[in-house]
Each structure stands twice: as C-alpha cells, then as structure tokens.
C-alpha cells in the first residue's frame, strides 16, 4: 500500500548538510498497522512527511496505493493539482492536533470536504457521521479550545477520515497525551483499521504504541531502517533489538548448575502449553524468571526466560523437546554460538 524505495532526504542549512533519511526502503501492506519507532532525530518524522510529500525527498520514490507520488510532485516547491488530489486520499493526524481554532469541531471535520468541493449538505452529513464514529457526536458545535487533548485528537482523526482515505499517516499522534488517553486513541485507530480496512503508518518513540497496535514495525536509527518486519518475524529474528525491546526479559540464574533458556513463542507453537508438557514429560522443575507475552493479531506471541536444573549438558534432551515444538531457543550464559539444532 505504501512503498518507499531509496528514500533520501538531505537538509541544507547554512552550508551544512544533514542527512535525515538515508536510502529508506519501507513496505507497508494493505490493511496493516505499521509502526516506525526511533529516537528523536532518527528521521522518522522526515520519513512520514515524505510519504505525502509535505517534505520533498532528495532522492528515491514514494508509492501510495499504486500511485507514484514522487512523479506527481513536479519540480517546484508548490504542490500541483495531481499531488493535491493524491494527498486528499491520504489522511494524516498530528502530534499537536493542528485543529483550526477559529472553527467549530464540525467545521474542522468539514474542511477537507470543502477542499474536495462537496456540497454543504453532504459535508455536514459526513462530518456528523465521522464525529459519531469517533465518539464525539455531542461536541460538534464546540470549539477545539473547549476540548481535552484526547478529544482534540479524536477530532483530528475524524478530520483525517473525511476524504475516505485508504491510508492514514499518524505523526506521533499520541505523544502529547497521557497514558490513559493514549490507550483509548490507539484502540480507536485499531478499530478503524479493522472496520474500514484502513492502512495505518504511524511513527512513535514509544515502544508501548508499537506493542499495542502494530502488526509490523521498523526500527529507525540515523536515517536508516535497521530492522523491520511483522511482530512475529521480528521475534523469530535472533538478536532482534526490536523484539527484545517489545518483549523485554529480566532475571538471572538463581545459582550455579542452572541452565537459563529464552524461549520465543510465535506462530502455531504459541498455542500449545509447552512448559507444562515439558515439566510432565521429563519430570523436571521449571522456574519462570521472566516473561513478556502478548496477544498480537489473535496469536500469543512473546518471550519467556526459564530456568532448568542442572548444566546445559544435563538438559540437551528437554531443550531438544522445545525445539521440536517449533520454539526458538536462546541459551543464556553460553558464550559459544547459540546452540544449533541437535548439537552435541
């Protein structure tokens, strides 16, 4: 749905060059919620602003819904008619909401429809429908200044949906909100994604956001995407920074002669009660040192750190059992390479 290839953005200011994006290849599938996470300055803001060409990329292409936007951009800094039409089919929500203070909530939602040249009747019907969808039907005549942050962002979302977009860009939409409100806004985005089949590209610096709504995620550092994939793919990648950040594990071995194993659940294997099976089959006591399990897309995914009695040599068979179940196993404190299938 959204594809960028070789996207590069270089800012020039007072003779200095800053590379904000350095050859970013991003692929967002239709109907998924895709999160780009990174620290401030990583280039994620430039990335999302390049997707609808609010920022002109220095090089590379952006394709949204099969349309090459970079080809529509033309040369000058002004957006031509075709680019403006393409933009009207991409919704965008902002960290600071960016609502017009001089307009009522309803009039704010109607603004994109005015730009599309819809009639007054159609505009107000659509606006009220959208306000109902985001749960603000009773605030239509209020001004943004009279709303709370969460309510403002709901108006921002309703406004972004006014042009019936297939794609929604979310530029740190929850970063100015408290945790409670953040959850409710994320739940709303998730609902819209499911109900309307909306593809959502969001950028954030909060791992919780990715964890709670995203099907896929990418980690950005210094203008590059260093890791990307669906949450299960990331989990399946040994040494994935995103996976360990999404599913952080703690806990140290409780003594000598113990084997500490990180078990990663993803896909089919996650549906079986493997730990109790392991315990029963081999008659061993298993301590759980830490666990981070979540339900993502209806499947249980996550990681668990367990401790088995005895050294690694004593536990080759139980570990083999776990591997057979299709789980990914990482041995801790074993400085040798992560032990391969059926080794030793």
């Amino acid at each position, binding site marked *: 749905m959204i594809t960028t290839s070789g996207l590069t953005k270089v800012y020039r200011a007072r003779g200095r060059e800053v590379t904000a994006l350095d050859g970013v290849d991003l692929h967002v599938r239709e109907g998924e919620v895709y999160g780009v996470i990174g620290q401030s300055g990583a280039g994620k803001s430039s990335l999302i602003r390049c997707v609808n060409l609010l920022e002109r990329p220095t090089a590379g292409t952006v394709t949204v819904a099969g349309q090459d936007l970079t080809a529509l951009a033309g040369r000058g800094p*002004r957006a031509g008619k075709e680019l403006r039409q393409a933009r009207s089919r991409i919704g965008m929500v902002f960290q600071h909401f960016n*609502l017009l203070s001089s307009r009522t909530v309803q009039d704010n939602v109607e603004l994109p429809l005015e730009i599309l040249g819809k009639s007054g009747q159609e505009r107000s019907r659509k606006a009220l429908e959208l306000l109902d969808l985001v749960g603000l039907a009773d605030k239509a005549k209020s001004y943004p200044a009279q709303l709370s942050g969460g309510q403002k962002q709901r108006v921002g979302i309703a406004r972004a949906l006014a042009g019936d977009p297939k794609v929604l860009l979310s530029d740190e939409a929850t970063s100015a909100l408290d945790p409670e409100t953040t959850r409710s806004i994320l739940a709303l985005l998730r609902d819209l994604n499911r109900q309307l089949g909306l593809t959502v590209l969001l950028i954030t610096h909060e791992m919780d956001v990715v964890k709670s709504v995203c099907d896929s995620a990418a980690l950005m550092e210094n203008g590059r995407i260093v890791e990307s994939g669906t949450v299960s793919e990331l989990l399946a990648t040994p040494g994935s920074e995103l996976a360990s950040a999404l599913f952080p594990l703690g806990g140290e071995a409780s003594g000598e002669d113990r084997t500490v194993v990180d078990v990663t659940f993803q896909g089919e294997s996650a549906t079986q009660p493997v730990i109790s099976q392991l315990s029963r089959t081999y008659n061993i006591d298993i301590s759980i040192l830490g666990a981070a399990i979540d339900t993502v897309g209806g499947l249980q995914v996550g990681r668990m750190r367990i401790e088995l009695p005895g050294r690694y040599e004593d536990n080759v068979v139980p570990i083999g059992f776990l591997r057979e179940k299709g789980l990914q196993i990482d041995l801790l404190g074993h400085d040798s390479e992560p032990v391969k299938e059926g080794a030793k």
Partner: protein
Amino acid sequence: MTWSEMQPLLEQACWDTLYMVGWSTLIAVAGGLPLGILLVLTDRGGLLQNLAANKVIGQVVNIARSLPFIILMVALMGFTRSITGTTIGVEAAIVPLAVGAIPFFARLVETAVREVDHGLVEAVQAMGGSTWTIVRKVLVPESLPSLISSITTTIVALIGYSAMAGTVGAGGLGDIAIRYGYQRFETQLMWITVAILAVVISVIQFAGDYAARSLHRRGAHSGPAPKLRLLKAAS
C-alpha cells in the same frame, strides 16, 4: 464663537474626518492585507518562497513607512492630482492617507499572519489544500483577532494623519483645530475638537478590542502555544 456657530462647523468636520479615514482605511486594508500576506508567503520557508520578490516588497514597504506623512503628502501631489483631479479637499487627502497606510497595515498583517502555527498550514497541505485555500481558510481566519487589532491601530493612526492632511486644506477635525483653534485663538473650539477626537479614538479602540477579544475567546488555540517557526526544523 457661539455654540450655534460652532455646531455646523464641527458637524461638517466630523463627517469629513470620518469620510477620509473610512475610505483610506478601506483602501489600506484592501492593499495592505494581500501585501502583508505576500511578505509572509514569499519569505524563506514560505509557501511561495521568492526571496527576490520578498526583498523588493519589503524595501518598498520600508521606504514608504519611513517617510513622514507630511512629506509623503507633498511628494504625492502629482499622483493625487492625476487620480482626483485636485490636490485640495477631502477626496484629495484620501490618496496620500491610503498610500501611507498601506505599508503600515501590511507590516502589521505580516506580524499577525506569522503568528499562525505552521502546523495548521501543514495540516491543510496534507488534506490537499492549495496555497490559496491555505490563505483563505487558515492564515486569514486564524489571525483574524490580530488582524482586527491591526485595523484598529491603523484607523487610529489614520485619524492622526488626517489631522495633518487638514492643514493643507483637506477639512476635518484637524483642520478646524488649526484654523479656528490655533490661528483664530478660538480656544474653546479647539478643546472641543480635542475632546471629540479623544472620544472617537476611545470608541474605536474599545470596539476594536472588543471584537478582537470576542473572536479570540472562542478560539484560544488548539494544541500548545503557536510557535513562531520561520525555518523548517530538520527532522
């Protein structure tokens, strides 16, 4: 001078002043509003960035602003005559008043429009709005309270200028104060004109402040305080 002698004089002078100030305000707004918006749009990082045009407009505005009004009035006599056919009278005074007020108002508009949060401009760009849409639906309505204050300031300044125009035969309250109050020692008449001017200016200032405040009250801003963003921040 008795009151019955003064009354028609004052009445006529009031109308003349209102006429001069009213028309020149209208022309100043019509000319200064687009000029002020252009100053913002053509500036670095603006939607119509054109630094050469920005420099030229800025210089013209600065030069016009730096001329004392009385000199502008004399310098423009030829121009005034070509438009109104005369350099004397109320109509003739409107020309230099308007020409003087356009750059004055344009600078005030520029300041007001710059205060509009750049995020709002971006939001409308992201919706597919054109530059013209942004001007009509964002820049002007969002800066309306400040624009109204700017109009108030311009009217008050124009009342001051119009008194000067009065000295070269334009009529109005300034003319009365000079010709009768100063030259004929009609102190009473002079004080009455001073009082009228004070009342008129207070009323205008009050009305302007009230209008600006009532517009502002419903709005405040969405999100945090609008930032003055002249340059696009990197990333």
